[in-house]
């Protein structure tokens, strides 16, 4: 791995980041709280 940033530590809260759905709608991570969340971050969808 090259150029890794520090990133969150265990127990730290993830900032409220705005993502986009395929239809262009905004999806905020904070709106997904209330249940555990698995975020699978891939390189690209192709």
């Amino acid at each position, binding site marked *: *791995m*090259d*150029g*890794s*940033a*520090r*990133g*969150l*530590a*265990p*127990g*730290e*809260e*993830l*900032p409220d*980041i*705005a*993502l*986009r*759905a*395929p*239809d*262009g709608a905004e*999806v905020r*991570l*904070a709106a*997904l*709280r*209330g*249940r*555990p*969340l*698995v*975020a*699978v*971050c*891939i*390189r*690209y*969808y*192709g």
Partner: protein
Amino acid sequence: MPCLAYLARVREAYPAVTALGARLVAVGTGSEAQAGELAARGLPFPCLVDATGALYEALGLGRVGWRTALDPATYASYWRAWRAGARRGRVTGDWRRLSGVAVLDAAGRLAWLHRARTIGDYPPVDAVLAALRGLAGGARPAR
């Protein structure tokens, strides 16, 4: 291509994820249209786009560099994905982003994280499920 092979494994495990009371989202840096095409092929969870890479930065996920490009593990992961039936499509977004899988608790706090060391370095799905099961007991990041 290893990304698509991993999402196929995640799809198989998705019922176990929801049975544990969790949500699951896929996130990529590519185009919204490409995410939509993939979702239309039957993924039961949302495929979202992080155009700015803000989530990747927050999680401290790395970037592809020359060491990654020369890592034999990269080519091994492509070979495994090809054998599993995945085929490479159009590259969109920031191709230099490395992948990662994060488990957050219900309050949005990081409970477990796998940061890829090379292309195609994804955690076993069982490890993700174990992290979800361990939330109440205080799971810790793998890396």
